[in-house]
């Protein structure tokens, strides 16, 4: 064993194990306090939330959700009003058409294929439509709600307002383009308005 100081010698116990000796220093005060602190915290917390009337996780969640639903409702109400001025400012800007294209490539090609030629979802460049009618006024709101049971997700909460307009503008800009083996037409025919 190394040299021991006086303080240690005073608390040295008279046993050893394979040469290991033990001192008997008192417990550090801060440690004792945190020891009891932890236990007292445990009792109080448990008493309030389980035995007492503390709100449950589910209850607190309910409050959060209620607030968010109100905010959302307000936002969706505004969003679903198709604004043709906004739309035109997008459809006439080559830059915004680019934004639309890149967003389409990011979120939609998985199901509608490159240039919307159709795959899991229908061809979006022909004159045949299931839900929309080939106009921005009808395509835009359909993208918002989609048809989840038919495999088309709702995008109102997934994409931002400007992205949604940009995608709509992009889709309108590729109506009638030449496609390599497009998906067979689905739905009713709506003549393209030039």
């Amino acid at each position: 064993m190394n040299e021991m100081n006086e303080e240690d010698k005073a608390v040295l116990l008279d046993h050893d194990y394979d040469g290991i000796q033990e001192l008997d220093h008192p417990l550090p005060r801060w440690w004792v306090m945190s020891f009891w602190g932890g236990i007292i915290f445990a009792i109080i917390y448990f008493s309030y939330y389980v035995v007492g009337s503390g709100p449950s996780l589910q209850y607190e969640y309910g409050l959060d959700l209620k607030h968010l639903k109100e905010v959302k409702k307000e936002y969706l109400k505004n969003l679903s009003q198709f604004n043709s001025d906004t739309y035109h400012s997008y459809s006439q800007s080559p830059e915004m058409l680019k934004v639309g294209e890149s967003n389409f490539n990011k979120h939609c090609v998985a199901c509608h294929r490159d240039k919307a030629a159709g795959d899991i979802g229908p061809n979006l460049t022909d004159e045949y439509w299931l839900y929309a009618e080939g106009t921005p006024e009808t395509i835009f709101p359909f993208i918002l709600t989609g048809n989840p049971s038919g495999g088309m997700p709702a995008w109102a909460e997934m994409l931002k307002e400007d992205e949604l307009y940009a995608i709509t503008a992009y889709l309108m800009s590729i109506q009638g383009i030449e496609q390599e083996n497009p998906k067979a037409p689905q739905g009713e025919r709506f003549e393209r308005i030039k």
Partner: protein
Amino acid sequence: MTTSKLESFRYDDKIVKFFIIATMVWGAVAMLLGVTIAFQLADWRLNLGLEWMTFGRMRPLHTNAAIFAFAGNGIFAGVYYSMQRLCKARLFSDKLSRVHFWGWQLIIVSAAISLLSGATTGKEYAELEWPIDIAITVIWVVFAVNFFGTLFNRREKHIYVAIWFYIATIITVAVLHIVNSLEFPVSFMKSYSIYAGVQDALVQWWYGHNAVAFFLTTPFLGLMYYFIPKAAKRPVYSYRLSIIHFWSLVFIYIWAGPHHLLYSSLPNWVQTLGMVFSVALWAPSWGGMINGLLTLRGAWDQVRREPMLKFMAAAVTFYGMATFEGPLLSIKSFNSLAHYTDWIVGHVHSGTIGWNYFLIAGILYYLVPQLWRTKIYSKELGQMQFWTATIGLALYIVSMWIAGVTQGLMWRAVEPDTGNLVYPHFIETVVRIVPMYWVRAIGGTLVLISFIMMIYNLYKTIKNAGEHEEEVFQAPAIEKSKGFLFFKKHRELEGLPLIFTILVVIAIGVGSAIEIIPSLVSTKFIQKNEAITPYTPLELAGRDIYIREGCYTCHSQMIRPMAAETMRYGKYSKAAEFVYDRPFQWGSRRIGPDIARVGGKYPHMWHYRHMWDPREVTLDSIMPKYPWLFSKKTDYQVLPKKLKVMAALGVPYGSEQIENAVANAKEQAEEIIAALEEGGVENKMKDKQIVALIAYLQRLGVEGRDIEDESTQEEEE
């Protein structure tokens, strides 16, 4: 007492040497596996498109190897060495020691083969299938007999604090392993848990958390109490502190498991118990750290010079860090941010690398020169190892911390004016943290390199050692204690190992019983719901594929009651939805999104493509490809047997259903293939495993959608 005459004896050091070699070998293997899967997350191509190489199969092997092969062999080496010296007695039986050694290595090898080939129970750190579970039990009993036999033969009346910790380890690990592994075999390498859903989750995390407590903590604290005073040649700081922190640690630890299940469908009162006991655990844990560090008082210049002591001091410091972070992460508000993220992974590694690896390194630097009667080959190399490991670990912890906080914040971010998620596409949150995966992988590589340095250093040390005689020791026998039931002081208890052991059993029994039994026996906590039906045979086949591929290593199936979470994934999960899940698959990590309600979210074709190559539908995905699901056939013939086992466990399958299982599965496969054919898939694919997997994925969470949230009911009241 000293009247009895001196007895001569030798120690069995050969078995310690065996375990030391095994520790080095498996340590390197475990870390190599860890580094491999770390790089797989940084670049998915490293999954190589091979079944056994994919992340989902390699990760369980990494965790099992690190815990049971590396730390396990390290524990056995240290315990067998110190036990003999603290008891002044040779190990109880040389034969049992050999059976223990070879049995354990055999278990590890069979674990490696079976996990890579996809045989798994799907319960974290308890993935091994039933034949191996039985083998583990047998070998653990061998260890226990050898240990308690040695204790019985001891020539030292009182048992030292290290032995207290060993006793707690042996008893508790046995209880945990047996209770959590209760399963019903279906075939040689497949079984179903006897617990379902919430109960399974509760038992599993009681086990999982206490595997950390009683496999990675208590044995190591015992080793610390032996090897630090020996290496530093300093007395232990406070005997009193040893007593208090030992008993409080053992009593409190066992309750803390549910902190892995906060915000889950577990009853709220159990969650809260898990949280408050975790907070109360902080001081008892730090008691161990204080005693370790203050034992090193006055030896700090030695610590600077000696790699051995440096590793020990750092180990205790990291232990302190990890046991501070643990209680913090158990507090509900922290947990809501950090759970399912990489923060938890960083936390675990500050324990397993910082505490377990470092302490083992310190112990090996002490033991190898002692056992081979020589000097360490190179202290400089030891210093280099220390700094390489420390820098590697720092990179690891910091990168995971950043990744975890980033991901946690991105998942919950909501735009205040629209009420929408800021990052509604999960993949955005993945792409953001991929750079951190690179940093972590590099950190891990440094840790692996440091370990190889140590292997080289110890190999050279052993090679340079000469021959030596076995030493003979002498000590008097002890009188067998008489009044073995009553004790007034703890000191007297230390002379009564049997009573001591019984008290340990009581200490761990109380918390276990109070937390687990109510949920097992009472239906009050897990209400059934008529909407939830058992899996169809094909879905069950798909579920077993999900388990086999270890999808749970990346995906959770537990939506928490948090607004940002239910906006992303749908209604929060209810206990009733899991009553047929054996095993439960809630997962603990979201490398990919939660899929508790993925059923019906996409068309079949989407999943078909996604499983073939996730990048076909999600450009930047880091999920592996699963091409073999498209060439392997679903095993229909085993389905009646599977249903029968499930029925025996209480799932309401009628005998007709069991008889018609094969026809029923084929019929469902026909429906799925019909939809896929529209997308150009050939009809002959209908018997392939991908179809069964799609059947499973498409039912996830569908039936539970209409179960009401609890909050709305509370509001109405």
